[in-house]
Structure formats: structure tokens, C-alpha cells
């Protein structure tokens, strides 16, 4: 029995679309018959988010993106994040699952005193996708908050939130004083608050990790986006106990990353 003789193309299409993007790429190399089916729009449209047209239409990307073959569009969205929500958010797809992966830029966060020039400035850095990132000049109390509507994200997905930042050479206030990180879904019990040091001395363990784009990230927490998602998820980063001056932190944003399944 050869499967392509038993099953019509649209059945095979359906089956492939129920596997994964990675499997679909492999299946394209199986045989002639599979090649055209596994690369087809019918399959790859199923890997894109349901509202991909809406997302792209409301982004800064050219509408010609929508006329790409769906497989190419998928791949483009995995490797070339686009700016959405008026340039406030950065969007891409997580390539293994096709889930939505956002970063909330600093402009869309509520950073206390951010518009007061002697506390914070907005600068432009070439290694950030956003036009502007926020640079800390001097505060005594640090408070950065953000929130995202859950229906923006992929449903039935576990997400991890990361604070994405840099520290310049001329910095102080983060070496010995921990900041408190918190992620919680509005209306539910607050999750555990994490206490981390952003800039530990060399002999202490570094909790922040280096990213591929050259920035640092530190995990703020996790949450599960279920199916009834008319709520919002809220994030906060705070240091408001010691009232010591702080300086030299650059904030790119807060990234919401779909969690990799362990068996992938």
C-alpha cells in the first residue's frame, strides 16, 4: 500500500497540518507526491496563527508579506520579527510550534519617571528592533510595569516572561540590591515574587542570561494562557526599599515567549 495512492491529497494535507512545522519540512523530502503537498499553502496556513492576516495588516510590514506563499511567510515571521501595535510591540512566531511570541517595548511599559529627563532618557540603539529604548540616569525608586491582553497571545499555551535589558559600564545600584519581579494574571492570586540581583559581582552567580541579540534577559515568571482570555496579564519589576540611587540600566522591553515543550 502506498499512502499517496490510498489517500487523496487533501487528507494527506490534513494529516501533515496536524504534525508540526518541522515534520512538514521533513515530509517535503519524502517523495514527489509528498513534496508538493507538504509545501502547500493548505498545510502551512494551518501552522500560522488564526489571526495572522490581522496581525500583519496592522503592523509596520509591507502588505506584500501577505502575498508570499504560506511556508515562506511562516519562515519569515520566525526569523524576521515585525513591529506591531504602532511600533510598541515586536512580533514573531516560535518556529517549532507557530505560537505567537511578543516583546512589549519599553515605550509600551509604564516606567515610573520615564518622561522626566533627569531620571530617564530615550535613546536609539542599533541592536534593538525598537526605535527607542529607555536608559536610566538616576532614580531612587525603580518601578517598571506592563500588561498585555491575553487574547493577544496564543491560547492554550504556557508563556514565560523575560525582562530584557542591558547595563552600561557607568552603572550603580544593582550590584547588591535585588529587584523584585512579578507576573500575574489580573484577578487571580499573585504569583510568587522573585527577587534577583541584576548585576551581581563576578564571584556571585549571574541570574541574567545573555541573548543572541546581545542583550541580557532575566525570567520574571510564567503563566498559562487558557481559552477564556478576556483578561490581562501583568508584569512588574520593582526596587523600592532602599531608596539608593540607581543608574545605568537600559530597558528594551518585556518578552513573552511560548514555552518549549520538553519532549520537542
Amino acid at each position: 500500500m502506498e499512502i499517496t495512492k490510498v489517500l487523496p491529497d487533501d487528507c494527506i494535507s490534513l494529516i501533515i497540518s496536524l504534525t508540526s512545522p518541522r515534520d512538514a519540512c521533513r515530509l517535503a523530502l519524502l517523495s514527489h507526491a509528498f513534496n508538493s503537498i507538504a509545501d502547500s499553502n493548505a498545510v502551512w496556513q494551518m501552522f500560522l496563527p488564526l489571526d495572522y492576516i490581522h496581525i500583519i495588516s496592522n503592523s509596520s510590514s509591507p502588505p506584500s508579506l501577505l502575498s508570499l506563499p504560506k511556508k515562506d511567510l511562516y519562515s519569515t515571521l520566525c526569523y524576521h520579527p515585525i513591529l506591531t501595535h504602532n511600533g510598541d510591540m515586536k512580533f514573531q512566531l516560535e518556529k517549532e510550534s507557530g505560537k505567537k511570541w511578543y516583546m512589549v517595548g519599553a515605550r509600551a511599559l509604564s516606567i515610573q519617571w520615564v518622561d522626566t529627563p533627569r531620571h530617564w532618557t530615550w535613546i536609539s540603539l542599533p541592536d534593538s528592533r525598537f526605535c527607542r529604548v529607555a536608559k536610566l540616569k538616576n532614580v531612587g525608586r525603580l518601578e517598571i510595569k506592563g500588561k498585555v491582553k491575553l487574547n493577544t497571545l496564543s491560547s492554550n499555551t504556557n508563556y514565560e516572561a523575560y525582562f530584557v535589558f542591558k547595563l552600561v559600564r557607568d552603572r550603580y545600584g544593582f550590584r547588591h540590591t535585588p529587584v523584585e519581579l512579578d507576573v500575574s494574571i489580573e484577578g487571580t492570586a499573585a504569583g510568587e515574587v522573585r527577587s534577583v540581583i541584576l548585576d551581581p559581582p563576578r564571584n556571585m552567580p549571574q541570574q541574567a542570561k545573555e541573548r543572541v541579540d546581545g542583550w541580557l534577559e532575566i525570567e520574571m515568571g510564567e503563566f498559562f494562557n487558557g481559552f477564556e482570555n478576556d483578561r490581562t496579564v501583568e508584569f512588574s519589576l520593582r526596587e523600592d526599599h532602599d531608596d539608593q540611587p540607581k543608574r545605568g540600566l537600559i530597558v528594551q522591553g518585556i518578552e513573552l515567549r511560548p514555552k518549549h515543550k520538553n519532549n520537542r
Partner: protein
Amino acid sequence: MSEVDMAVIKPEMMKSYIWLQTADGSIQQVEQEVAMFCPMICHEVIQKGMGSSKNYAISLPQRVNPAMLSLILDYCRFHQVPGRSNKERKSFDEKFIRMDTKRLCELTSAADSLQLKPLVDLTSRALARIIEGKSPEEIREIFHLPDDLTEEEKLEPLKNTTDDPRIRLLNRLYAKKRKELKERQKLKNIEVEEERVDDRSVDDLLSFINGDNGDSKGIKNSKSKKKNRRRKDQQKNTSANEAIKNHNKEPNGLNQVCHSAEVGQKVRAGVGATSNLHDVEDDIFDNKNELDDGDIDDEIDPALKEKIDREVEDFARRLNSDWPERMQEILSFGHERKPVHFSLNGNGSLRRYANSEQR
């Protein structure tokens, strides 16, 4: 239903039956509510008035043989009962699909021709679970697929909109291989000095490429000394020496520039692997983008070349020491790793990324 069954049931209940005929000519009666659960049958009965008697039996599509029909009717018989809980239905479904792959395929096909979508979804999911995560060889075996893509087709260029140097090299390798194949076609009737291995698999290609990475130069290369030195180095690191030697004697001397030590690493990972095609496909998955060049013409200044070659050898050494872990790393995380990246700047010169530098 057998004649005996019908004889027993008929006098007791005044049920309606629908007459169905499968492609092999056999005809049977089925309880109306069960048969009507299939949209196609429902349509035939309501729109065309068929199925009310033996003479007007509904001709079922060819994909529905008696065995499949029986299975489908079992499914319908269970699910058409309104009172069942979701849990019961799920439990039934799980047991129902426990059958060999061949039957699952036939069942999907039969259910599809009867437009019975819930069953098509159920069987399709089961088949998807079977396929998931398997290598192409395994899948071909399960579904008896011919490996009928030519080497050429498998080596179609990957797309490279990110301008990833690894993809660029991979595409060059493919272009090179395609050129080779074409040349071989041309030279088919001409006598050649040494024997060549004609049915080269992708394995051979990749091992050849490994050897060639050591020999990499710009297209204008003519220094055979350097070539020999590197060839010697590579012999320590690869096992496909014969292939390398044969190819290097080739008159056309197709050489390539190795733009990225990582490519060498990635490609080398394919040598001797259980499934090189598997790597190629994972490469394709990791690096799907626009092809910007199919040609091998690139110039690079010799000093940088030396540096790259040293990096290649260094990686080869490292790779050979922790190969299985590297393999996993390379296959799984094409874009997410942090080792040294090479990339072309706008003006064509190579740049090395460090973590704190800008891209």
C-alpha cells in the same frame, strides 16, 4: 447483517433500513439512523431518494470496501446515540483507532469519501501522531513510499532572506552538486582517467564538502600548496578521504569559499551520521529563506581566509571531541545558539559578532 440476524430482528421491530452497495457489488441493509450519520448517505437519501430498497441501493464510493464500511458503521452506531457523555465518546474513539497503519489510511480515505468529518479528524490525528518526530526513512518504510526525489530535487536551494552565512554555504554546496550532476551528464559518454563514484548519496556530498572546506578558497585560487596542506589537515578529521581525493583531481576544480566556521561545523556533523538527509531537512527547517545567489563567485581577502580556515580546523577538532552533543545542538537550535557568528556586512567584508557588539 446476516440473513439470520435479519430474520430474527425484522418481525420484532419496525425499523427503517437503508440499502447500501459497495464497489465489489455486495449489498447490505443498515439501520437508517446509523447510515444517515454519514453526510454522503444522508444526501443520497434525502436529495435523490435512493436507498429505500435493494434495487435502489446507494452505490458507495470505491474507496469504501466492505471491511471499511463495517468499521465506519460501528463508529456511526456508537456516536449517533445522543445520550452519550464526552468521556464515553472519547474513550470509544481511543479504542476504536487502535489498528494498524494501513487500515488507518484506508479508513481515513473511506470516511473522507463519505464526508464523515469527525472520523476523518480522528484517524488523521492518529496518523499525524504516528508520523510526528520520525525520520524520513522510518516514514517511508511505514507508508511504503518510493524515494523518488532525485538528488537534484533534494538539493534545491534553501531560501536565505536572513543572509545567514550557513545557508549561503549550504546553497553553494547544492549549486556545486547540481553543477557536478550536470557535468556528469555531459561527461557520461566521454572516457575519464579515474573512476568516479556515480551514485553519490547526500552522505558523500557532505563528506566531500567537509574535505573541501579545508580546501576552500576564492574562485581565483591557483595555489596548490595551500590546497595540499589543508587536504592533509582534513584527512585527520574526516573519514571520506577517497571521495575528497577523487574530487580534488577533477579538472574543473570547483572550489568554494567557506564563509562561516559554523557551516563547516554544521556540515561536518552530517558526516557519518545515521541520517544525513535528516540533517539536510532539519537544515531546511532551520534556515528557510530566500535564495540570493546560486553561484559560487565570491571574493575574500586571503588574510581573512586564513583566519576562517583556522576556525574551521578548530571547530573540527572541537566537534570531533564532543560530537553527539554537538549534533543535537546543531540540529535543534539553528538560530538560537551563541557561538561566534560570521556575517557579511553591506560592503562585503566579514564581520565577527561578539555578544556586546551590534549586528
